[in-house]
Every structure is written in structure tokens, then in C-alpha cells.
């Protein structure tokens, strides 16, 4: 029966996570870490892993805790509230799930426990210069040769791979009429011969470091294949779908924080002899932020609930949640910045980190323009 409250256990997770980020990641540190060269704090990552967050949705048999997606999202919402950057989505969700759902028993045993402990960091290398999140965008080739596969091509806009130990590279092993066929997933060491990683985000105002991975005849063994050869998309596609509302929860947390910043400012800042919160034009901005917040919140949690409960209509719910979250997060931080006037563009103010993150996550796992197309396909069954 309809119940939109978190369970008591989830409330505890939420409080724990909130206390953690408030204590361990106050605004000055949020600025420092996000602005650092790697955009990453190994110390915080270790603490997050110690709390069991990294392996949260991985099976208990492999060192995870087998929690629900809603549980995981509760934590992501607080991480997003704090603008805490980490490879949790890449390693603990995207790559962890890929291995857990597509890997061999041996791969799971070998990789998942160290991923869950945060000792091994993985990143997903999917997108290419011809940017997109569908199977048709995968053009990097993997050719069988002397019992090995040789990878050639370029991956772009890849977060977290600069601090990862390995990446899961989505490659094309054969080309047929259906772009979903012929894709294979490879686990590739960052140190592999012929693989180079370069930071694309120099000087840019994006919340996550984005990297280019160039594969110049990188050789990998057959044992590096996750799932079956040519059948990689069938493993990856549901993982992408499940990871999306988890990312949305991070964005919901960001909108929540933007709203809090806005409310705090409008009730203290004065202009024309009044607090600016008394101006209807300012109030309307805040109302828009709250509408963005609640729209993103409920579409996201419905999608997560559908995933946990294996309900029909997951794709539609996930698509809806990401459209609403992407558009809502950007709108919310832009309005919060406008409410703050010139103070809203002062990069010493933590809002700047949220403005950047709203941009980098806008397209990640699918941008609104592509997702609205997908929504139309769902509406018209075509």
C-alpha cells in the first residue's frame, strides 16, 4: 500500500550519511577536494568504504551487503547534498553491478570483495567522441588475434578513470544489423600497454574530471571478457538503467542543498530596506526550486522502488526521473545563483561546486534531449 516514507532502517542510514558528510565534508573541504587536481579524497573514500557504502548493493556472498536501491539512493542523496565526489557510482554501482550480473564466478570472487572494500576502483568506459548512451555509439573495436583481443579506438568524457585501477571498456567485437549485438565488455588494466588517459577538463567548469582514454592496440586476454562475447550490451543495459536513478538521487540532494542555500540567503540579505525574501520575484525563484526538488525526488524514488520491487515500467520511470532531475538540478542551481546576485558567482562560495556538478551530470547516463526521444518511443511502442 502506498507509503512514501523511508523505513526506520532507511531513516537511520540517512541520518548516518547526513552526519557523516556534515562532519567529514564541510563546505570548505567540499571546495578543496572538488578543486584539487584529482577531484578526489582517498581518505574520505576509505571512510566511506569502511561504512560499507561501496559494496552496498553488491551481493553478500562477495563482500557486499545486498541492500536495496532505495537504501543506496538514500546515501547518494546525502553525498549529493554535500557535493562529495567519489568513484562510488562508477566503481560500486556501474562496474560492481556489471561484474555481479555478468561476470563469471571466478571474476566475482576475484573482483567484487576488493571493489566492495574500496581497495579496487573501477570506471566504466562507454562513451566515445560520437557521444551517446545507446549501443549504436560503441565503435571502439576489439579484434581477436592470437588468442587475445586487440582494442583500438577512443573513449571520451569518462569520469573517475583517472583514479581507477581498471576500467570496463565497452567494445565492438562484431557489427550486424542490430547495434545491441556484437558488443563485448572487457576489464582493462589502467597500466595496459597502449592505453593512455588524459584529462579533458582542464580549465573547464565541470564537476567531475572527464578523461579521454585512447586505446592504441591494447591487448587483453579472453579472461578479461565480462559476460559473453558479443552479448555485452545485454549485461550492461539493465545496469545502466538501474544506476541512473541512483545518480538522480545524488542530483536530488544537490537541489535540496541549493534550496537550503537560497532560503538561508533570502531571509538574511537585505535590499531596498527589506529582506529579499519579501520580494515576489525572489519568492517565485524559490518556488521553482522547490517544484524542481519535489519533481525530481518523487520521480526518482518511484523509479528506485520499481527496480527494488521489479515492477513493470522501469524504463519509463527511469527515463522520467533522469529528464526531470537533469533539468531540475540545472534550473535550481542557476536560480540559486541568481538569487545570490554577484555572491552567486563567487567561486569561494560552495554553490559553485553545485553549479559545476549540475552540468557534468546533466548528460551523464543520458541527457534530456536523447531521453525525451526514448520517452516518445515508450509512449508509442515504436
Amino acid at each position, binding site marked *: 500500500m*502506498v507509503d512514501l516514507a523511508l523505513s526506520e532502517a532507511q531513516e537511520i542510514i540517512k541520518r548516518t550519511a547526513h552526519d557523516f558528510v556534515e562532519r567529514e565534508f564541510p563546505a570548505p573541504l567540499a571546495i578543496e577536494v572538488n578543486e584539487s587536481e584529482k577531484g578526489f579524497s582517498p581518505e574520505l573514500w576509505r571512510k566511506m568504504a569502511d561504512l560499507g557504502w561501496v559494496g552496498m548493493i553488491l551481493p553478500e556472498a562477495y563482500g557486499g551487503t545486498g541492500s536495496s536501491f532505495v537504501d543506496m539512493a538514500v546515501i547518494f542523496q546525502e553525498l549529493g547534498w554535500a557535493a562529495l565526489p567519489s568513484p562510488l557510482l562508477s566503481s560500486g554501482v556501474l562496474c560492481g553491478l556489471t561484474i555481479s550480473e555478468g561476470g563469471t564466478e571466478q571474476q566475482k570472487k576475484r573482483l567484487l570483495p576488493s571493489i566492495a572494500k574500496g581497495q579496487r576502483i573501477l570506471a566504466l568506459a562507454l562513451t566515445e567522441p560520437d557521444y551517446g548512451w545507446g549501443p549504436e555509439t560503441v565503435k571502439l573495436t576489439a579484434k581477436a588475434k592470437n588468442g587475445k583481443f586487440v582494442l583500438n579506438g577512443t573513449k571520451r568524457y569518462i569520469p573517475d578513470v583517472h583514479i581507477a585501477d581498471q576500467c570496463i571498456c565497452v567494445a565492438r567485437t562484431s557489427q550486424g544489423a542490430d547495434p545491441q549485438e556484437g558488443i563485448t565488455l572487457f576489464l582493462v588494466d589502467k597500466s595496459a600497454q597502449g592505453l593512455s588517459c588524459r584529462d579533458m577538463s582542464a580549465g573547464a567548469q565541470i564537476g567531475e574530471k572527464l578523461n579521454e582514454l585512447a586505446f592504441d592496440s591494447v591487448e587483453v586476454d579472453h579472461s578479461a571478457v565480462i559476460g559473453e562475447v558479443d552479448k555485452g550490451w545485454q549485461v550492461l543495459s539493465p545496469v545502466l538503467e538501474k544506476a541512473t536513478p541512483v545518480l538522480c538521487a545524488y542530483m536530488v540532494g544537490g537541489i535540496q542543498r541549493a534550496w537550503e542555500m537560497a532560503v538561508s540567503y533570502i531571509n538574511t540579505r537585505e535590499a531596498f530596506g527589506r529582506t529579499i525574501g519579501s520580494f515576489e520575484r525572489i*519568492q517565485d525563484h524559490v518556488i521553482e526550486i522547490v517544484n524542481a526538488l*519535489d*519533481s525530481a525526488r518523487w520521480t526518482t*524514488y518511484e523509479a528506485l522502488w520499481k527496480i527494488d520491487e521489479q515492477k513493470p515500467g522501469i524504463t519509463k520511470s527511469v527515463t522520467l526521473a533522469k529528464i526531470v532531475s537533469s533539468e531540475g538540478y540545472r534550473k535550481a542551481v542557476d536560480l540559486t545563483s541568481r538569487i545570490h546576485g554577484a555572491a552567486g558567482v563567487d567561486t569561494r562560495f560552495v554553490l559553485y561546486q553545485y553549479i559545476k556538478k549540475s552540468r557534468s551530470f546533466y548528460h551523464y547516463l543520458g541527457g534530456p534531449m536523447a531521453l525525451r526521444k526514448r520517452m516518445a518511443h515508450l*509512449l508509442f511502442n515504436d
Partner: protein
Amino acid sequence: MDFEFRDTPKLAKFRKEVRAWLDLNMPMDFEIPDNPHDVLPHSAKYEFILKARHALGAKGWLAPTWPKEYGGGGLSMEEAAIVEGEVAQRPWSRFGVGDFFPSTITQFGVQIYAIGTEEQKKRFLPPILKGEIIRWNGSTEPDCGSDLAAVKTTAIRDGDEYVVNGTKVWLGTQYDNADYIQLIAVTDPKAARHHNIGLFCVPVGLPGISKVRLPMIRNCHTSGWQMFFDNVRVPVEYLIGGHENATNAWRVLSTATRFPQPNMGWSVRDRNQEFVLDYVRKTKRDGQLLSQDPDVREALVETEIQLEINRLFGMRQNWIAMTGKRLVGYEATQATLQGKVTTATQAEAYADILGPAALIKDPEWALFDGNIEYKHFAPVAMASAGITQEVSKMIMTRWACRVGD
């Protein structure tokens, strides 16, 4: 968390009972007249609605979650949702379920419940909740709308009566006759604003009441009324609660969630959206299915997104009501606002997609029995109904902006 309405065995049994009852009392084959939104007195539809409402009311299903002692159904929220869902699935519910669950309950009933004396609740609520009476809303005046505290109509105590003088407008926009007027009036012109207004339940037959028609934008041929009160003597028993309680009564109304409106639509897809989706899937323009036109697709994706948010906000309202956690909050107002935004998005999108056909009402050419035309003008016609978006935002500001906290 749980986002689903799910029948337990007990609820499944109840659903069967509801269906059987509806089959018996509101049969499926009721013939739908043209122009379903016209509610002309003594028209076939009007008579049908009255009959249906009386039947639902007698069963307690017009106010399914209200206490039985006041004429409600004493049902759980879950059971109420089943009643609504089943009513909404009947073909004749394209009239809009709101026609069956009148604002006499959702507005006036709530106010009487909130501020009336026990005696008044016992007297007025049962006929209201049973759908036996209709009240007209006598709040707005020619010079007072959103700012209700600015009413000029006076009700001055004289012995055991209040003497009412003034003019009210936009009464009876849905129904052509009424039993009572839900009237607010100044009881003490010298007292402070917001603390000098009384809420009355005025019988329409009292001497000194007269009325003229006010034609208005709407897709029914009815109109509103302007009513004149000329030394109308209202016995003191018709004053609901205290003589300065009206502001509280309205405040309760604008944020109340205690008795959720049954037509929250949390279990029912929007019929207009379904119609248009179906229409573009089947209709070709210049040899191409409309559903293959990328602009048509994008317009319907946008209406779908707004409708989905609307559905979730409605679900949240009912959940808040169910759990009884909060009596007030910004959420009810946010849901109302989202409803208005959604309706406007639909109105524009459908007209863009369907062209001038969306404006046609004549039964021969109208789309979806005139519902599309009705929908198109709803955002204009209903912009100020109940509450304007501007005033909604004023209310929402208190919580959303924490202004004054």
C-alpha cells in the same frame, strides 16, 4: 517505500462489492448525451448526475473517508480509492468525477467540520455528505476576490438574527440551483481585518435575496449568478462556529488534507491524454501517422512528464492524508499549482497537435465528445476558480521560502 495501490484480499473483495453495487445503481449502459460538460437544469445529464450522486451519497460513498456519524462512508483511504477508481472507469465518468463528488463536500463540508459546533456538524453535514443538498459559494464580491478579508458584505447581529447586506458574484457556476449559500460577511466593521468575518450557511429562500445571471467563459452553457442581499435576516444558528472564524475556515481549506479530494486521480490516467495518444497513433496527416511527427511526439512527451509529476504530487497528498502526519504544509498548494500548470501544458499541446479541430464543439466535428475543446479553455476559465496561481504562490511562499520562520 511503496508507490502502488494494491488490493489485499480484503480490498479485492471490497472492489467486487463496489463493482456490483455500481452495476446495479449506476449501470454501464447509461447513454451519454452530447456535450458532456453541459450541465443544463433538467437535462438528461443533470438528472443522471443528481440520481447518481444521491445513490452514491446514500451509500456513504460521496464522502467515503468521512465518519459515518456525519453521513460519510467510514471507509479507509484504500477503500475510498477503490470507489473512485471504479467510478472513474465507468464510461459516463467522462463527465469528470468531480461532478459526482461536489465541492459542497470538499469545500463547505470541510469548513463546517473544521469550525462548526457539534450541533451544526450533526445538522448540516449529513445532507451535504449524502449529496442531498448543494451549496453555492458566496465568497467573491465585485471588488473582492483573492483578498477575502476585504469582503464588503455585512452581517450585523440584531437580536437572534444577523442582517445581511451586500453583493456576491460567481455563485452557482456548476449547478443551476442550490439549497444554501456558503457566505462570508463582516460581522463587525470596526474590528481588525481577518478577525471580523463570519461564515454563514444561508438558506436560499430567505426574503431579500435576489439574483441575476453572469455569463462566463466555459464550455457549458451555464453561467454564474450575481446575488444581492438586501436586509436578509439570517437566524444566528446559521453562523458556522464563531463570528470571526471565516478566515480560519478558509485557511483550513487552502491547506487541508484531512479529507482528501476523491478526484485526486492517483489511480486514473488522464482521459484526454489517453484520447490524444490514441488519436495520433491512428490518424494520418498527409499520409504519415501523426505519431510519427517528431513535434507531435515531443509535445506529448512533455504533457506526459507533467501528468506524471501531477500524479506523484497527488499520490503524496493522499499519502499525507492517509498517514495523518500533517494537517497543513506547502504540498497541497504545490499540487494545486502543478495541476494548473499541467492543464495549461495539455491545452496548448493538444491545440498545437490537433489544429482548429481542438476548438470545435459541435457534436458532428468535435474531438472526444467536446472534451478537447473543454480542456483547451479550462486553463483560462478556471484560472481564478478556487484560488489563483498568484495567491497559491503567496501561500506556498510561507513554507517553501521559510519566510517569517
